[in-house]
């Protein structure tokens, strides 16, 4: 099995940029746990793919270039790519290009050695062509890691599943018109409660966390340093303004805004409260069905209006998988512990 990693996951000694000029010369001082685990399983590492800066591609625009991980896999340069897909680019692009993106539940896969972007939602997943390859890689990288404080205590993960298992799929009628399911799926109508709130909650929390996570880039300890700074304050400002792209800059500024005294209660704190409601509602729903199915894009809606599709699993810490399914491209979402049932449902409907 040949695998690649997004250039935000570290391999000791190799330059790791997270797609940012700010880290153009950053040589990783350690290796990510997922990298070590893949090597231990005898997988062959064949290189990195360049993500957009901290994974936040055109966060505030509608542009959306093809992700190099999708290109690398489509061209057959590897069998799987380890990625961190917070903003949904891979979950959207993978099935549209005949590929699969598997995202484990939060806490399942170690994030040690991943350059953080949105810590409460960062989670390493697997982009692959074949279901069996993705499941093998996911089984290899899952499991407890004492170096990650969000790693769930020792549980053995075995995602070796077939495609025949029957299961119930929650379908939100408010989004889908007619949809054809595979023979192993029993449809159950669900209400997509809070959907219009998911994008604002996600943006507020994501910007706050990006803002915090990028404070470490100051031109002093590693990475890019601007030339000709007259004093330390100027060094910080020039290095950061020249080193970050404009989406990350605006996310950092917005993060400062939502965390400011003026906006903290009404935006940041409120978003964390709404996140609680969202998590509890969908966790309850996911007890009644094996998975929820969502489209990977909504025609006629802008990027921001679609952000809820990708935010839903992350806000609840649920697992998901995006696949080309029958005549659609779908993202299935499930609770932790029900992954194999979800994978089976998704696999059966693949073209």
């Amino acid at each position: 099995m040949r695998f690649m990693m997004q250039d935000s996951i570290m391999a000791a000694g190799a330059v790791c940029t997270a797609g940012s000029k700010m880290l153009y010369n950053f040589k990783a001082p350690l290796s990510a746990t997922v990298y070590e685990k893949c090597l231990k399983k005898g997988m062959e590492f064949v290189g990195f793919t360049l993500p957009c800066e901290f994974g936040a591609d055109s966060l505030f625009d509608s542009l959306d270039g093809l992700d190099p991980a999708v290109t690398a896999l489509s061209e057959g340069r590897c069998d799987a790519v380890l990625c961190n897909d917070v903003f949904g680019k891979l979950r959207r692009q993978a099935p549209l290009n005949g590929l699969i993106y598997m995202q484990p539940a939060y806490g399942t896969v170690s994030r040690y050695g991943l350059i953080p972007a949105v810590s409460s939602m960062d989670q390493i997943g697997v982009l692959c062509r074949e279901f069996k390859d993705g499941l093998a890689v996911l089984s290899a990288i899952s499991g407890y890691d004492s170096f990650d404080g969000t790693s769930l205590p020792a549980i053995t993960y075995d995602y070796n599943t077939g495609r025949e298992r029957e299961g119930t799929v929650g379908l939100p009628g408010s989004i889908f018109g007619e949809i054809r399911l595979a023979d192993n799926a029993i449809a159950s109508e669900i209400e997509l409660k809070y959907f219009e709130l998911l994008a604002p909650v996600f943006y507020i929390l994501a910007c706050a966390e990006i803002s915090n996570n990028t404070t470490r880039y100051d031109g002093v300890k590693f990475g890019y340093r601007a030339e000709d700074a007259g004093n330390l304050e100027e060094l910080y400002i020039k290095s950061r303004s020249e080193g970050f792209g404009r989406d990350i800059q605006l996310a950092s500024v917005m993060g400062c805004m939502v965390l400011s005294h003026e906006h903290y209660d009404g935006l940041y704190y409120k978003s964390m409260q709404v996140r609680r409601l969202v998590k509890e509602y969908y966790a309850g729903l996911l007890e009644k069905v094996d998975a929820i199915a969502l489209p990977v894009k909504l025609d006629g809606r802008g990027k921001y209006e679609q952000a809820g599709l990708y935010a839903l699993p992350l806000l609840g810490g649920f697992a998901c998988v995006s696949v080309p399914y029958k005549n659609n491209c779908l993202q299935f979402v499930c609770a932790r512990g029900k992954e194999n049932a979800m994978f089976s449902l998704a696999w059966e409907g693949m073209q």
Partner: protein
Amino acid sequence: MTDESLKLFEASAKLEFDSDTRQWAAGAVNRLEESFEKLGQVDTRDAAPLISVLDMRNVFREDIAKKPVTREELLSLAPEEYDGYFQVPRTIE
């Protein structure tokens, strides 16, 4: 979002936009702020803030020493270092 507010938050973030970027940023923030207003309509009186999706508290690992990244390895990543320290421009005028 006014220009003045934006400049204030730029300063907090240790960033400085040029005028084109500031204009683009103000437009983007203003568009988002409209949707943020929806949050105010949600009744969250009984909802505790969700800080982590995992119910884990006080996470420790066993107290076993492992090889840390060394001072030399970390300093080798610095843009400038001098005699075992990070070097920065003069901080006292």
